[in-house]
């Protein structure tokens, strides 16, 4: 079956294999690069639209520091005046990075939140994207009267059942975004 090994044929076969594989990958990448960029842009666009009030005009990305890390935000303007900000905010969840888009209105309330990417446990922490009991509480979360931390830590955020770490990370991401917007207003 297999050919007898000598230095020449080993080098030739390995080099040829890598060359062909690299060529295949290059072709597939060239074909899929545009759809991937489009998909990611759509996810981002949908997230921004979901966390800002309806009918606002969304600006280009503006760099900002969120929770000490480099991030970006988008300004939602209506009739020329900024009404809300969409802030990209990343924290460490249970399984890895948890990235949210957080909408904060100009008067300092959380308008809505949306998960951009996460690596939480399916069926547990991953519910932060779908469990209505958890996601609904962020809509119009009034930071003036409620405290941004989970109930276990003395705050007003209902955690997801059996996923306190994810809930804490989510809450911290919202808090960092909120602080970042507060910093902008100054």
């Amino acid at each position: 079956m297999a050919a007898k090994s000598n230095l020449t044929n080993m080098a030739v076969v390995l080099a040829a294999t890598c060359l062909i594989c690299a060529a295949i990958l290059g072709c597939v990448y060239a074909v899929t690069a545009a759809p991937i960029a489009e998909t990611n842009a759509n996810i981002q666009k949908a997230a921004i639209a979901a966390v800002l009030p309806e009918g606002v005009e969304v600006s280009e990305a503006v760099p900002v520091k969120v929770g000490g890390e480099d991030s970006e935000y988008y300004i939602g303007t209506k009739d020329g005046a900024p009404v809300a900000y969409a802030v990209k905010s990343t924290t460490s969840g249970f399984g890895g990075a948890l990235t949210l888009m957080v909408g904060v209105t100009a008067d300092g309330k959380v308008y809505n939140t949306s998960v951009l990417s996460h690596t939480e446990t399916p069926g547990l922490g991953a519910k932060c994207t779908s469990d209505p009991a958890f996601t609904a509480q962020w809509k119009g979360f009034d930071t003036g009267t409620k405290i941004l931390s989970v109930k276990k830590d003395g705050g007003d955020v209902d955690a997801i059942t059996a996923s306190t770490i994810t809930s804490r990370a989510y809450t911290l991401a919202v808090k960092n975004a909120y602080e970042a917007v507060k910093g902008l207003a100054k």
Partner: protein
Amino acid sequence: MSKMQLITKGLVKDNPTFVLILGMCPTLATTTSAINGLSMGLATLFVLVLSNMAISLVAKVTPDKVHIPVYIVVIATFVTVLQLLMQAYTPGIYSALGVFIPLIVVNCIILGRAEAFACKHNVIDSALDGIGVGLGFVASLTVIGIVREILGSGSVFGWKFITGDGILAFIMAPGAFLVLGYLMVLFNKYLVKK
């Protein structure tokens, strides 16, 4: 062995999950729901068939001492192709399976079939073997996923038949081991003829 046998042996007699007990890492980790198990199975099937075919073609010209690196490069190429395609066209499933897509490279079912079958047989037989073993993997992962989803979330393929939560342990790692163990016992007792 007839062509038909090549396909069916992977389903029961040489079932990769319940009989050969290969590829346990993705099996335990991705079967939290039926749809995740099914998607992971199909992703592996895709890579397995293509890598089996490619390897049966290059086996004759590959020197003995470098056959493992050559096979790994071939497998890694197909996995990366799959990863790019999924990212572009099925982003939902891609994000659900996460890190387990790139880890298909080190799934021992694929290298195992390359070593045990594809390098000694022709392209068509290797493709059929890949389909058979791949379908066995799809079926096992889907069944484990269905059982874990029913017990853990009270739903089947996302269709919920109870309100509230199921038995959470079945979504987490201990449930994966329990379900896998019991299914393995049942499978070997009733389906595998000794």
